[in-house]
Protein backbone atom coordinates (compact mmCIF):
# COMPACT_ATOMS: atom_id res chain seq x y z
CA UNK A 1 0.00 0.00 0.00
CA UNK A 2 1.67 3.27 -1.08
CA UNK A 3 2.18 5.81 1.64
CA UNK A 4 2.93 9.49 1.52
CA UNK A 5 5.54 10.58 4.07
CA UNK A 6 6.44 13.99 5.36
CA UNK A 7 9.78 15.15 3.92
CA UNK A 8 10.44 17.40 6.93
CA UNK A 9 9.23 18.07 10.46
CA UNK A 10 6.49 20.61 11.09
CA UNK A 11 2.74 20.98 11.37
CA UNK A 12 0.55 19.11 8.91
CA UNK A 13 -2.52 20.61 7.27
CA UNK A 14 -4.78 18.59 4.97
CA UNK A 15 -6.48 21.66 3.50
CA UNK A 16 -5.36 24.93 1.90
CA UNK A 17 -7.05 27.04 4.60
CA UNK A 18 -9.37 26.38 7.53
CA UNK A 19 -12.51 27.08 5.45
CA UNK A 20 -11.71 24.80 2.52
CA UNK A 21 -12.27 21.07 2.03
CA UNK A 22 -9.39 18.59 2.47
CA UNK A 23 -7.20 18.23 -0.65
CA UNK A 24 -8.26 14.55 -0.98
CA UNK A 25 -11.06 12.29 0.23
CA UNK A 26 -11.50 8.51 0.26
CA UNK A 27 -11.82 7.10 -3.24
CA UNK A 28 -10.17 10.06 -5.02
CA UNK A 29 -7.67 9.27 -7.75
CA UNK A 30 -4.22 10.57 -6.85
CA UNK A 31 -1.52 11.35 -9.39
CA UNK A 32 2.12 11.96 -8.49
CA UNK A 33 1.96 15.74 -8.95
CA UNK A 34 -1.18 16.24 -6.82
CA UNK A 35 -0.91 18.29 -3.63
CA UNK A 36 -2.18 16.25 -0.69
CA UNK A 37 -1.33 18.62 2.15
CA UNK A 38 0.80 21.41 3.54
CA UNK A 39 3.60 21.32 6.08
CA UNK A 40 4.19 24.45 8.10
CA UNK A 41 7.82 24.61 9.09
CA UNK A 42 9.26 27.65 10.84
CA UNK A 43 6.35 29.83 9.71
CA UNK A 44 6.74 28.76 6.05
CA UNK A 45 4.14 26.64 4.25
CA UNK A 46 5.42 23.90 1.94
CA UNK A 47 3.14 21.95 -0.42
CA UNK A 48 3.35 18.20 -0.11
CA UNK A 49 3.06 16.40 -3.45
CA UNK A 50 1.91 12.77 -3.57
CA UNK A 51 4.97 11.55 -5.55
CA UNK A 52 3.12 8.22 -5.93
CA UNK A 53 -0.08 7.26 -7.77
CA UNK A 54 -3.13 5.43 -6.52
CA UNK A 55 -6.54 5.74 -4.95
CA UNK A 56 -6.79 7.79 -1.77
CA UNK A 57 -7.66 5.78 1.34
CA UNK A 58 -7.22 8.17 4.28
CA UNK A 59 -5.08 10.74 6.00
CA UNK A 60 -2.84 9.11 8.61
CA UNK A 61 -2.08 12.49 10.22
CA UNK A 62 -4.85 14.82 11.39
CA UNK A 63 -5.23 18.40 10.25
CA UNK A 64 -3.06 20.55 12.54
CA UNK A 65 -0.96 17.64 13.89
CA UNK A 66 2.72 18.12 14.64
CA UNK A 67 4.59 15.60 12.45
CA UNK A 68 8.17 14.31 12.28
CA UNK A 69 10.23 13.87 9.11
CA UNK A 70 9.37 10.50 7.59
CA UNK A 71 6.03 10.24 9.37
CA UNK A 72 3.20 8.83 7.24
CA UNK A 73 0.72 11.54 6.24
CA UNK A 74 -1.65 9.57 4.00
CA UNK A 75 -2.34 6.06 2.74
CA UNK A 76 -3.22 5.11 -0.84
CA UNK A 77 -4.26 1.91 -2.61
CA UNK A 78 -1.89 1.06 -5.47
Amino acid at each position, binding site marked *: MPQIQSP*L*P*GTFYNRANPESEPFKKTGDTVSATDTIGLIE*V*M*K*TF*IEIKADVEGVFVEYAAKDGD*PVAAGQVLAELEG
Partner: protein
Amino acid sequence: MAIQRLLIANRGEIAVRIIRATNELGITSIQVYSEADKEMLAVRLADEAVCIGKPHAKDSYLNIENVIKAAIEAKADAVHPGYGFLSESAEFARAVVEAGMTYVGPSADTIERMGDKVSARQTAEAAGVPIVPGSKGRIGTIDDAAVVAGKIGYPIMIKASAGGGGRGIRIANDEAELRTLAPQAQSEAEAAFGDGGLYMERSIQAPRHIEVQIVGDGKRAVHFFERECSLQRRRQKVWEEAGAECLDDATRKHLCETAVALAESVNYVGAGTVEYLYDDATNEFYFIEMNTRIQVEHPISEMVTNTDLVQEMILVAGGAELSVSQDDITKTGHAIEVRINAEDPHMQFLPFPGLVTKLKAPQGDGVRFDHFLYEGYQIPPFYDSLVGKLIVHGKDRADAIRKMALALTDLEIEGLKTTIPLHVALAKDAGVQSGDFHTQWLEPWLEAGNLTKGAAS
Protein backbone atom coordinates in the same frame (compact mmCIF):
# COMPACT_ATOMS: atom_id res chain seq x y z
CA MET B 1 9.85 48.02 43.65
CA ALA B 2 12.95 46.41 42.21
CA ILE B 3 12.25 43.16 40.39
CA GLN B 4 13.34 39.96 42.13
CA ARG B 5 11.70 37.10 40.24
CA LEU B 6 11.39 37.62 36.49
CA LEU B 7 9.34 35.33 34.26
CA ILE B 8 10.65 35.19 30.69
CA ALA B 9 7.64 34.85 28.39
CA ASN B 10 9.62 33.98 25.29
CA ARG B 11 12.05 31.42 23.85
CA GLY B 12 15.14 31.09 21.69
CA GLU B 13 18.07 33.45 21.73
CA ILE B 14 16.26 36.39 23.35
CA ALA B 15 15.36 34.21 26.36
CA VAL B 16 19.05 33.36 26.75
CA ARG B 17 19.90 37.06 26.43
CA ILE B 18 17.39 38.03 29.15
CA ILE B 19 18.74 35.32 31.48
CA ARG B 20 22.23 36.80 31.05
CA ALA B 21 20.84 40.17 32.16
CA THR B 22 18.99 38.70 35.17
CA ASN B 23 22.15 36.88 36.27
CA GLU B 24 24.12 40.10 36.18
CA LEU B 25 21.39 41.92 38.10
CA GLY B 26 21.02 39.16 40.71
CA ILE B 27 17.40 38.50 39.70
CA THR B 28 15.92 34.98 39.75
CA SER B 29 14.99 33.88 36.20
CA ILE B 30 11.89 31.78 35.54
CA GLN B 31 11.79 30.44 31.99
CA VAL B 32 8.56 29.31 30.32
CA TYR B 33 8.67 26.60 27.67
CA SER B 34 6.35 24.64 25.40
CA GLU B 35 6.33 20.85 25.21
CA ALA B 36 8.57 21.15 22.13
CA ASP B 37 11.12 23.31 23.96
CA LYS B 38 12.01 21.17 27.01
CA GLU B 39 15.59 20.88 25.77
CA MET B 40 16.15 24.50 24.83
CA LEU B 41 19.19 26.34 26.15
CA ALA B 42 17.20 28.93 28.11
CA VAL B 43 15.49 26.16 30.12
CA ARG B 44 18.91 24.77 31.04
CA LEU B 45 20.30 28.18 31.98
CA ALA B 46 17.36 29.60 33.92
CA ASP B 47 17.03 29.29 37.70
CA GLU B 48 13.55 27.81 37.28
CA ALA B 49 11.48 26.62 34.34
CA VAL B 50 7.76 26.00 33.82
CA CYS B 51 5.89 24.30 30.97
CA ILE B 52 3.08 26.40 29.50
CA GLY B 53 1.50 24.09 26.95
CA LYS B 54 1.65 22.32 23.64
CA PRO B 55 4.17 23.03 20.88
CA HIS B 56 2.05 25.37 18.76
CA ALA B 57 2.63 28.96 19.83
CA LYS B 58 -1.12 29.59 20.13
CA ASP B 59 -1.24 26.90 22.84
CA SER B 60 1.87 28.14 24.68
CA TYR B 61 3.85 31.34 23.98
CA LEU B 62 0.79 33.14 22.57
CA ASN B 63 -1.61 31.85 25.21
CA ILE B 64 -2.08 34.72 27.68
CA GLU B 65 -4.00 32.63 30.19
CA ASN B 66 -1.31 29.93 30.33
CA VAL B 67 1.53 32.42 30.67
CA ILE B 68 -0.19 34.41 33.44
CA LYS B 69 -1.09 31.22 35.29
CA ALA B 70 2.54 30.05 35.11
CA ALA B 71 3.77 33.43 36.36
CA ILE B 72 1.40 33.40 39.34
CA GLU B 73 2.23 29.79 40.26
CA ALA B 74 5.97 30.49 40.02
CA LYS B 75 5.49 33.57 42.23
CA ALA B 76 7.06 35.85 39.64
CA ASP B 77 6.92 39.57 40.45
CA ALA B 78 7.57 40.64 36.84
CA VAL B 79 7.26 39.40 33.25
CA HIS B 80 9.62 40.09 30.33
CA PRO B 81 7.91 39.58 26.97
CA GLY B 82 11.05 39.57 24.73
CA TYR B 83 10.22 40.25 21.06
CA GLY B 84 7.55 38.65 18.87
CA PHE B 85 4.88 36.46 20.54
CA LEU B 86 3.04 38.59 23.16
CA SER B 87 5.58 41.44 23.24
CA GLU B 88 3.25 43.94 21.60
CA SER B 89 -0.04 42.71 23.02
CA ALA B 90 -1.71 45.40 25.12
CA GLU B 91 -4.07 42.71 26.41
CA PHE B 92 -1.10 40.73 27.74
CA ALA B 93 0.58 43.77 29.34
CA ARG B 94 -2.75 44.59 31.02
CA ALA B 95 -3.23 41.01 32.25
CA VAL B 96 0.27 41.02 33.79
CA VAL B 97 -0.45 44.22 35.71
CA GLU B 98 -3.95 43.08 36.74
CA ALA B 99 -2.38 39.92 38.18
CA GLY B 100 -0.26 42.15 40.41
CA MET B 101 3.04 41.86 38.53
CA THR B 102 5.33 44.31 36.75
CA TYR B 103 5.40 44.29 32.96
CA VAL B 104 8.87 44.91 31.53
CA GLY B 105 7.84 47.40 28.90
CA PRO B 106 5.56 50.38 28.44
CA SER B 107 1.98 50.58 29.72
CA ALA B 108 -0.80 48.71 27.94
CA ASP B 109 -2.23 52.07 26.86
CA THR B 110 1.05 53.06 25.20
CA ILE B 111 1.34 49.68 23.45
CA GLU B 112 -2.20 50.13 22.16
CA ARG B 113 -1.62 53.69 21.05
CA MET B 114 1.65 52.96 19.23
CA GLY B 115 0.39 49.61 17.91
CA ASP B 116 -2.42 51.17 15.91
CA LYS B 117 -0.82 52.75 12.85
CA VAL B 118 -3.28 55.62 12.68
CA SER B 119 -3.00 56.68 16.31
CA ALA B 120 0.79 56.14 16.23
CA ARG B 121 1.05 58.48 13.27
CA GLN B 122 -1.07 61.11 15.01
CA THR B 123 1.04 60.81 18.18
CA ALA B 124 4.27 61.12 16.18
CA GLU B 125 3.00 64.15 14.30
CA ALA B 126 1.96 65.81 17.57
CA ALA B 127 5.47 65.20 18.98
CA GLY B 128 7.05 66.91 15.96
CA VAL B 129 8.22 63.76 14.17
CA PRO B 130 8.08 64.08 10.36
CA ILE B 131 5.51 61.72 8.84
CA VAL B 132 4.97 60.49 5.28
CA PRO B 133 2.16 62.39 3.55
CA GLY B 134 -0.89 60.18 3.99
CA SER B 135 -4.53 59.78 4.93
CA LYS B 136 -5.69 61.54 8.11
CA GLY B 137 -7.30 58.47 9.53
CA ARG B 138 -8.87 55.21 8.53
CA ILE B 139 -10.23 54.92 5.02
CA GLY B 140 -13.92 54.08 4.85
CA THR B 141 -14.81 53.06 1.31
CA ILE B 142 -12.84 52.43 -1.87
CA ASP B 143 -14.24 55.68 -3.35
CA ASP B 144 -12.92 57.60 -0.32
CA ALA B 145 -9.56 55.90 -0.87
CA ALA B 146 -9.46 57.07 -4.48
CA VAL B 147 -10.17 60.69 -3.47
CA VAL B 148 -7.50 60.67 -0.72
CA ALA B 149 -4.96 58.96 -3.02
CA GLY B 150 -5.56 61.63 -5.64
CA LYS B 151 -4.58 64.29 -3.11
CA ILE B 152 -1.50 62.47 -1.70
CA GLY B 153 -0.18 61.37 -5.09
CA TYR B 154 0.83 58.03 -6.62
CA PRO B 155 2.49 55.60 -6.13
CA ILE B 156 0.61 55.06 -2.92
CA MET B 157 1.02 52.46 -0.20
CA ILE B 158 -2.10 50.84 1.27
CA LYS B 159 -1.58 49.46 4.77
CA ALA B 160 -3.63 47.62 7.36
CA SER B 161 -4.28 49.88 10.34
CA ALA B 162 -3.74 47.01 12.77
CA GLY B 163 -0.93 45.56 10.69
CA GLY B 164 2.62 44.45 11.19
CA GLY B 165 5.22 42.25 9.56
CA GLY B 166 4.40 43.57 6.12
CA ARG B 167 1.02 41.84 5.93
CA GLY B 168 -1.83 43.70 4.30
CA ILE B 169 0.52 46.08 2.44
CA ARG B 170 -0.08 46.91 -1.25
CA ILE B 171 1.40 49.55 -3.55
CA ALA B 172 -0.86 51.08 -6.21
CA ASN B 173 0.62 53.08 -9.11
CA ASP B 174 -2.68 54.57 -10.29
CA GLU B 175 -6.38 54.67 -9.47
CA ALA B 176 -7.23 51.49 -11.39
CA GLU B 177 -4.66 49.55 -9.37
CA LEU B 178 -5.93 51.14 -6.17
CA ARG B 179 -9.45 49.93 -6.89
CA THR B 180 -8.16 46.36 -7.39
CA LEU B 181 -5.67 46.27 -4.52
CA ALA B 182 -7.51 48.07 -1.71
CA PRO B 183 -10.19 45.35 -1.32
CA GLN B 184 -7.43 42.69 -1.27
CA ALA B 185 -5.53 44.56 1.44
CA GLN B 186 -8.78 44.94 3.36
CA SER B 187 -9.60 41.22 3.34
CA GLU B 188 -5.99 40.28 4.16
CA ALA B 189 -6.06 42.66 7.12
CA GLU B 190 -9.43 41.29 8.23
CA ALA B 191 -8.12 37.70 8.05
CA ALA B 192 -4.78 38.43 9.73
CA PHE B 193 -5.79 40.88 12.42
CA GLY B 194 -9.59 40.67 12.65
CA ASP B 195 -9.68 44.35 11.68
CA GLY B 196 -10.09 45.42 8.06
CA GLY B 197 -9.21 49.08 8.73
CA LEU B 198 -6.91 50.63 6.12
CA TYR B 199 -4.86 53.78 5.78
CA MET B 200 -2.69 55.08 2.98
CA GLU B 201 0.52 56.98 2.57
CA ARG B 202 2.80 58.07 -0.27
CA SER B 203 5.19 55.31 -1.32
CA ILE B 204 8.79 56.53 -1.08
CA GLN B 205 10.82 54.83 -3.81
CA ALA B 206 13.91 52.90 -2.67
CA PRO B 207 14.19 54.39 0.83
CA ARG B 208 16.60 53.34 3.53
CA HIS B 209 15.32 51.92 6.82
CA ILE B 210 16.80 53.79 9.77
CA GLU B 211 15.67 53.41 13.37
CA VAL B 212 16.53 54.96 16.71
CA GLN B 213 16.93 53.00 19.94
CA ILE B 214 15.40 54.72 22.94
CA VAL B 215 14.90 53.88 26.61
CA GLY B 216 12.53 55.79 28.89
CA ASP B 217 11.80 55.73 32.61
CA GLY B 218 8.37 57.36 32.43
CA LYS B 219 9.66 60.89 32.94
CA ARG B 220 12.73 61.09 30.79
CA ALA B 221 13.91 59.29 27.66
CA VAL B 222 17.33 58.96 26.06
CA HIS B 223 18.48 57.63 22.70
CA PHE B 224 21.32 55.21 21.97
CA PHE B 225 21.82 56.49 18.42
CA GLU B 226 20.55 55.01 15.20
CA ARG B 227 20.73 51.74 13.30
CA GLU B 228 20.42 51.16 9.58
CA CYS B 229 18.50 48.02 8.61
CA SER B 230 18.01 48.49 4.87
CA LEU B 231 19.13 45.01 3.84
CA GLN B 232 15.83 43.14 3.97
CA ARG B 233 14.27 40.11 2.33
CA ARG B 234 10.49 39.87 2.32
CA ARG B 235 10.46 42.81 4.73
CA GLN B 236 12.56 40.84 7.22
CA LYS B 237 15.83 42.42 8.29
CA VAL B 238 18.88 40.39 7.31
CA TRP B 239 21.94 42.57 8.07
CA GLU B 240 21.88 45.53 10.47
CA GLU B 241 24.34 48.28 11.29
CA ALA B 242 24.90 50.89 14.00
CA GLY B 243 25.18 53.68 12.92
CA ALA B 244 23.86 54.84 9.59
CA GLU B 245 26.80 56.22 7.62
CA CYS B 246 24.53 57.86 5.05
CA LEU B 247 23.42 60.51 7.57
CA ASP B 248 25.18 63.81 8.10
CA ASP B 249 25.63 64.91 11.71
CA ALA B 250 22.81 67.46 11.66
CA THR B 251 20.30 64.95 10.24
CA ARG B 252 21.42 62.27 12.72
CA LYS B 253 20.98 64.67 15.62
CA HIS B 254 17.51 65.74 14.44
CA LEU B 255 16.46 62.13 13.83
CA CYS B 256 17.55 60.97 17.29
CA GLU B 257 15.99 63.97 18.99
CA THR B 258 12.59 63.35 17.38
CA ALA B 259 12.66 59.76 18.70
CA VAL B 260 13.31 61.04 22.23
CA ALA B 261 10.55 63.65 21.86
CA LEU B 262 8.08 60.96 20.79
CA ALA B 263 9.05 58.67 23.69
CA GLU B 264 8.77 61.48 26.23
CA SER B 265 5.41 62.59 24.82
CA VAL B 266 3.91 59.22 25.81
CA ASN B 267 5.84 58.93 29.14
CA TYR B 268 7.53 55.87 27.73
CA VAL B 269 8.87 53.21 30.11
CA GLY B 270 11.33 50.61 28.83
CA ALA B 271 13.23 49.98 25.60
CA GLY B 272 11.68 50.95 22.31
CA THR B 273 12.56 51.67 18.72
CA VAL B 274 11.30 54.46 16.50
CA GLU B 275 11.51 53.41 12.86
CA TYR B 276 11.97 55.79 9.93
CA LEU B 277 12.23 55.75 6.17
CA TYR B 278 15.11 57.84 4.93
CA ASP B 279 15.21 59.29 1.42
CA ASP B 280 18.82 59.80 0.24
CA ALA B 281 17.69 61.97 -2.65
CA THR B 282 16.07 64.63 -0.46
CA ASN B 283 17.88 63.98 2.86
CA GLU B 284 14.44 63.65 4.49
CA PHE B 285 13.24 61.10 7.03
CA TYR B 286 9.72 60.03 7.90
CA PHE B 287 8.25 58.13 10.84
CA ILE B 288 7.10 54.58 10.03
CA GLU B 289 6.21 53.11 13.40
CA MET B 290 7.34 52.60 16.95
CA ASN B 291 8.13 49.12 18.25
CA THR B 292 7.30 49.04 21.94
CA ARG B 293 9.74 46.29 22.92
CA ILE B 294 13.38 45.22 22.72
CA GLN B 295 14.36 44.38 19.14
CA VAL B 296 16.35 41.55 17.59
CA GLU B 297 19.12 43.95 16.54
CA HIS B 298 19.58 45.70 19.91
CA PRO B 299 23.12 44.27 20.41
CA ILE B 300 24.70 46.55 17.78
CA SER B 301 23.47 49.60 19.72
CA GLU B 302 24.86 48.02 22.90
CA MET B 303 28.23 47.55 21.22
CA VAL B 304 28.66 51.13 19.96
CA THR B 305 27.39 52.74 23.18
CA ASN B 306 28.83 50.22 25.68
CA THR B 307 25.41 49.81 27.35
CA ASP B 308 23.37 46.79 28.44
CA LEU B 309 19.92 47.71 27.11
CA VAL B 310 18.21 44.62 28.51
CA GLN B 311 19.46 45.36 32.03
CA GLU B 312 18.42 48.99 31.63
CA MET B 313 14.86 48.08 30.57
CA ILE B 314 14.51 45.70 33.52
CA LEU B 315 15.77 48.35 35.95
CA VAL B 316 13.40 51.08 34.74
CA ALA B 317 10.49 48.62 34.79
CA GLY B 318 11.31 48.03 38.47
CA GLY B 319 10.91 51.74 39.10
CA ALA B 320 14.52 52.95 38.80
CA GLU B 321 15.38 56.17 37.03
CA LEU B 322 17.46 55.93 33.86
CA SER B 323 21.06 55.16 34.84
CA VAL B 324 22.41 57.58 32.24
CA SER B 325 21.77 61.05 30.91
CA GLN B 326 21.98 61.79 27.19
CA ASP B 327 25.39 63.40 27.59
CA ASP B 328 26.77 60.18 29.11
CA ILE B 329 25.91 58.21 25.97
CA THR B 330 28.62 58.33 23.34
CA LYS B 331 29.06 56.30 20.21
CA THR B 332 32.34 54.53 19.44
CA GLY B 333 33.12 52.82 16.14
CA HIS B 334 30.66 50.85 14.02
CA ALA B 335 28.81 47.59 14.70
CA ILE B 336 27.15 45.06 12.40
CA GLU B 337 24.76 42.20 13.17
CA VAL B 338 23.78 39.43 10.78
CA ARG B 339 20.87 37.10 11.42
CA ILE B 340 21.75 33.42 11.28
CA ASN B 341 18.56 31.62 10.25
CA ALA B 342 18.06 27.87 9.91
CA GLU B 343 17.28 28.22 6.20
CA ASP B 344 19.00 27.12 3.03
CA PRO B 345 19.84 30.29 1.06
CA HIS B 346 20.62 28.17 -2.00
CA MET B 347 17.10 26.64 -1.92
CA GLN B 348 14.84 29.71 -1.79
CA PHE B 349 15.55 29.98 1.94
CA LEU B 350 13.75 26.72 2.71
CA PRO B 351 13.61 26.29 6.50
CA PHE B 352 15.94 23.59 7.79
CA PRO B 353 15.25 22.71 11.45
CA GLY B 354 18.10 20.24 11.91
CA LEU B 355 20.08 18.64 14.71
CA VAL B 356 23.17 20.63 15.69
CA THR B 357 26.06 18.18 15.35
CA LYS B 358 28.88 20.67 15.74
CA LEU B 359 29.07 24.24 17.00
CA LYS B 360 32.09 26.50 17.01
CA ALA B 361 31.49 30.14 17.87
CA PRO B 362 33.95 32.79 16.73
CA GLN B 363 36.09 34.43 19.40
CA GLY B 364 37.94 37.68 19.55
CA ASP B 365 37.80 41.26 20.56
CA GLY B 366 34.58 42.96 19.45
CA VAL B 367 32.92 39.69 18.37
CA ARG B 368 29.70 38.45 19.97
CA PHE B 369 27.44 35.53 19.08
CA ASP B 370 23.95 35.60 20.67
CA HIS B 371 22.26 32.25 20.10
CA PHE B 372 20.48 29.28 21.70
CA LEU B 373 22.38 26.38 20.19
CA TYR B 374 24.46 23.57 21.64
CA GLU B 375 25.84 20.37 20.18
CA GLY B 376 23.13 17.71 20.19
CA TYR B 377 20.26 20.24 20.12
CA GLN B 378 17.36 19.45 17.80
CA ILE B 379 15.83 22.69 16.56
CA PRO B 380 12.03 22.40 16.73
CA PRO B 381 10.09 23.24 13.54
CA PHE B 382 7.28 25.20 15.20
CA TYR B 383 8.83 28.62 15.59
CA ASP B 384 10.86 31.29 13.86
CA SER B 385 13.98 30.23 11.94
CA LEU B 386 16.33 32.65 13.74
CA VAL B 387 18.94 30.58 15.59
CA GLY B 388 21.59 33.17 16.28
CA LYS B 389 22.99 36.62 15.65
CA LEU B 390 26.61 37.30 14.87
CA ILE B 391 27.65 40.75 16.01
CA VAL B 392 30.93 42.58 15.45
CA HIS B 393 32.25 45.94 16.60
CA GLY B 394 34.97 47.64 14.58
CA LYS B 395 36.73 50.97 14.78
CA ASP B 396 34.88 52.12 11.64
CA ARG B 397 32.52 50.61 9.06
CA ALA B 398 35.24 49.10 6.84
CA ASP B 399 36.86 47.55 9.90
CA ALA B 400 33.49 46.13 11.05
CA ILE B 401 32.85 44.54 7.62
CA ARG B 402 36.35 43.05 7.64
CA LYS B 403 35.75 41.68 11.14
CA MET B 404 32.38 40.26 10.10
CA ALA B 405 33.95 38.44 7.13
CA LEU B 406 36.53 36.89 9.46
CA ALA B 407 34.02 36.00 12.18
CA LEU B 408 31.76 34.32 9.61
CA THR B 409 34.57 32.01 8.52
CA ASP B 410 35.18 31.12 12.19
CA LEU B 411 31.51 30.33 12.86
CA GLU B 412 30.75 26.65 12.29
CA ILE B 413 27.28 25.18 12.70
CA GLU B 414 26.93 21.64 11.37
CA GLY B 415 23.78 19.55 11.02
CA LEU B 416 21.62 22.25 9.52
CA LYS B 417 21.56 24.70 6.66
CA THR B 418 21.99 28.31 7.68
CA THR B 419 22.13 31.74 6.09
CA ILE B 420 25.89 32.03 6.79
CA PRO B 421 26.72 31.75 3.02
CA LEU B 422 24.43 34.72 2.33
CA HIS B 423 26.32 36.87 4.82
CA VAL B 424 29.71 35.73 3.51
CA ALA B 425 28.63 36.87 0.03
CA LEU B 426 27.20 40.17 1.33
CA ALA B 427 30.40 41.00 3.25
CA LYS B 428 32.36 40.59 -0.01
CA ASP B 429 29.94 42.61 -2.13
CA ALA B 430 31.10 45.97 -3.49
CA GLY B 431 27.62 47.47 -3.02
CA VAL B 432 27.52 46.46 0.63
CA GLN B 433 31.09 47.68 1.18
CA SER B 434 30.29 51.08 -0.30
CA GLY B 435 27.04 51.28 1.72
CA ASP B 436 25.15 52.09 -1.45
CA PHE B 437 21.90 50.19 -0.79
CA HIS B 438 18.28 50.63 0.24
CA THR B 439 15.30 48.51 1.30
CA GLN B 440 14.63 47.34 -2.27
CA TRP B 441 18.25 46.31 -2.89
CA LEU B 442 18.63 42.76 -1.52
CA GLU B 443 15.84 40.92 -3.34
CA PRO B 444 16.97 41.93 -6.87
CA TRP B 445 20.55 41.17 -5.78
CA LEU B 446 19.46 37.64 -4.87
CA GLU B 447 17.37 37.25 -8.03
CA ALA B 448 20.41 38.26 -10.11
CA GLY B 449 22.26 35.21 -8.75
CA ASN B 450 24.85 37.09 -6.71
CA LEU B 451 24.74 34.49 -3.96
CA THR B 452 25.78 31.68 -6.30
CA LYS B 453 28.50 33.87 -7.84
CA GLY B 454 29.82 34.65 -4.36
CA ALA B 455 29.96 30.97 -3.45
CA ALA B 456 31.92 30.12 -6.60
CA SER B 457 34.63 32.72 -6.10
